[in-house]
């Protein structure tokens, strides 16, 4: 995200905040280490007078952290972030929150395509979904209380990409994709690049509101397996998690609770609102799976797991500072 923003020449300064040091050399970004709850954020905001906060640290991946920590990161982290952004005399004009389509759940009564204003039809059963819904309601309240701020919420479908580990990508890397016997639902994916581009898009445009983000089209779960050369691992339709638990030990298959509804009924989100706002995708849902599978093949062949830095520093330097480059009208 910061890499992409650095390329924008009218961004004066970028400030990164995270619990870990960034893995890439970031040229113009100042990085501050923080704890997971962002308790220092309000001081930073006051000291630097930033005008945009992009909240990408929401954990939408329940295998990455224990569930208690998940609540801590998501709900308490967001509370601190919103408190910092909404403090009196704040310089912040825009808050962007990266959420997930998990808020819609997955139930048989669902429409084929969820629009942003639709609410979920099934009950909230998993901790991840509960924490995301809580965060979204906090953000909604914040937007109501601070009408002069632009608050944008992006709800992403399942993200696939080289840098990110999710239960699905984890399974695809092991070429063993859990499914529920007798069900072959339709699912959507979004490429990591499109995630970054969407965040960049809403950062540089004025588009308050809630937006779904997902690649075009849907594809059956079995096709996800066939495109990526994985085998389907059927679990019984009744209590699948009971059977998935020993498999997790044996084969490293991850099957968190929020996957259960998804691989039974699937989920689709309507992405027309973000499209109408002017964003266009580079990858379709199927294209995302294919590009992930190809990246995986490459990884298997070359053995490299370290993602490359996209914007070569020398080239970047050249474009930014060399007198040979014809300057754009805005610089």
């Amino acid at each position: 995200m910061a890499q992409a923003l650095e390329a924008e020449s009218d961004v004066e300064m970028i400030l990164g905040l995270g619990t870990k040091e960034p893995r890439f050399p970031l040229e113009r970004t100042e990085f501050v280490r923080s704890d997971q709850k962002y308790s220092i954020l309000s001081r930073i905001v006051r000291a630097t007078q930033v005008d945009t906060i992009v909240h990408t640290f929401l954990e939408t991946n329940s295998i990455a952290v224990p569930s208690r920590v998940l609540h801590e990161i998501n709900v308490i982290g967001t509370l601190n972030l919103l408190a910092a952004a909404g403090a009196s005399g704040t310089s912040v004009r825009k808050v962007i929150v990266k959420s997930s389509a998990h808020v819609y759940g997955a139930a048989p009564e669902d429409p084929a395509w969820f629009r942003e204003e639709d609410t979920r039809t099934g009950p909230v059963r998993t901790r991840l979904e509960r924490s995301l819904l809580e965060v979204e309601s906090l953000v909604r309240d914040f937007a109501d209380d601070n009408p002069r701020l632009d608050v944008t919420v992006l709800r992403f479908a399942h993200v696939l990409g080289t840098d990110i580990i999710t239960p699905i990508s984890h399974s695809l890397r092991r070429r063993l994709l859990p499914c529920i016997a007798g069900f072959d639902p339709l699912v959507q994916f979004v490429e990591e690049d499109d995630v970054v581009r969407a965040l960049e898009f809403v950062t540089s445009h004025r588009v308050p509101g809630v937006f779904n983000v997902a690649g075009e089209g849907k594809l059956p779960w079995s096709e996800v397996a066939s495109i990526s050369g994985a085998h389907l691992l059927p679990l019984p339709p009744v209590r699948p998690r009971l059977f998935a638990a020993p498999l997790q030990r044996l084969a490293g298959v991850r099957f968190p609770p929020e996957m259960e509804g998804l691989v039974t009924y699937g989920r689709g989100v309507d992405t027309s609102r973000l499209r109408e706002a002017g964003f266009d995708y580079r990858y379709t849902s199927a294209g995302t799976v294919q590009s992930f599978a190809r990246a995986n093949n490459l990884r298997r062949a070359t053995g490299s797991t370290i993602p490359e830095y996209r914007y070569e520093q020398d080239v970047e330097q050249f474009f930014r500072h060399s007198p040979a480059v014809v300057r754009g009208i805005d610089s």
Partner: protein
Amino acid sequence: METVGKARSSGHPDDRDFIDAIVGHTPSGEARAAEESDGAPGTPELTGASVSYLPVATRRHEPEATIDEARRSDVDEWGRSEHMRSIVRRLYDPMYRYWFRVEWEGLEKIPTEGGALLVANHAGAIPSDAPAIMHGIETELGRPVYGLADYFFRTVPGVGTMWSRTGGVPAHPDNAYRILHDQGQLALVFPEGTKATSKTYSDRYRLRRFGRGGFVEIAMRAGVPIIPIAVVGAEESMPMLFRMNGLAKALNLPYFPVTVNSLLLGPLGYVTYFPAKFKLRVLDPITFDVEPGLERYSRSRVMDEAERIRGTMQDTLHDMLRQRRSVWFG
């Protein structure tokens, strides 16, 4: 990672200029097109505006695949697969032709293009009318039909997937609107729902309540005509004697039928129909002179229209039954 950005277009603190600065910053469409066509980022002919764009647009970002080349199957966004449909059509065709000997009347009233909502009466403990209607229209008119049905089907392993691949769609108003309005396809709906299929043989050809008239509202919103279809024969193909409510509850089914077929053939009776003669009559399309696309329509108007359609269909059924001489030969 958390990113806090500070964006300022020098000297223009207000939003309007802020946005303008961004717009001025993005490359013009033709510069982008030129760059894509010659494939060499950094050719000197490019305008200055695209130079600031260049570091973002490395070659790696080219779209890797379009939907056509990445896909492996022809399953569409509703789960329908034309390939699967053609297999089912081949298997079902002898049944359609020689078992039920389906006869259509007024098939030309179904449009060959554009959306329309087909509305039919429902019958048979395990309904035999939906496959016959879908098969008939797909073979005669060569266009797909999406069967809207209760989401209950989705929850049954195997059946749910098969139902979806062969054109079944959960009957959600949003789904219907998309199929009819956005995609201009045909959708088939049985407004009586399971109230019709769970009725006993003694109630045959008596139309149940047409739900809450939701199908009329959907057609109004999508701006498509409703085309009623009266079906005779399905009632006799699997007549129900009584329901076993306790068993249904235990199995989590809407109802559990005890049919004549099952008494004669045992469990095989649940997959075997009697060879009743099927006659289908397509009635005149009904259009509504209301503005499409509204969130809500007058409740009384919707209920009146639904009741009127129900009445017309009931009259047609009586008329067809008066003319019928034999259950088996029509």
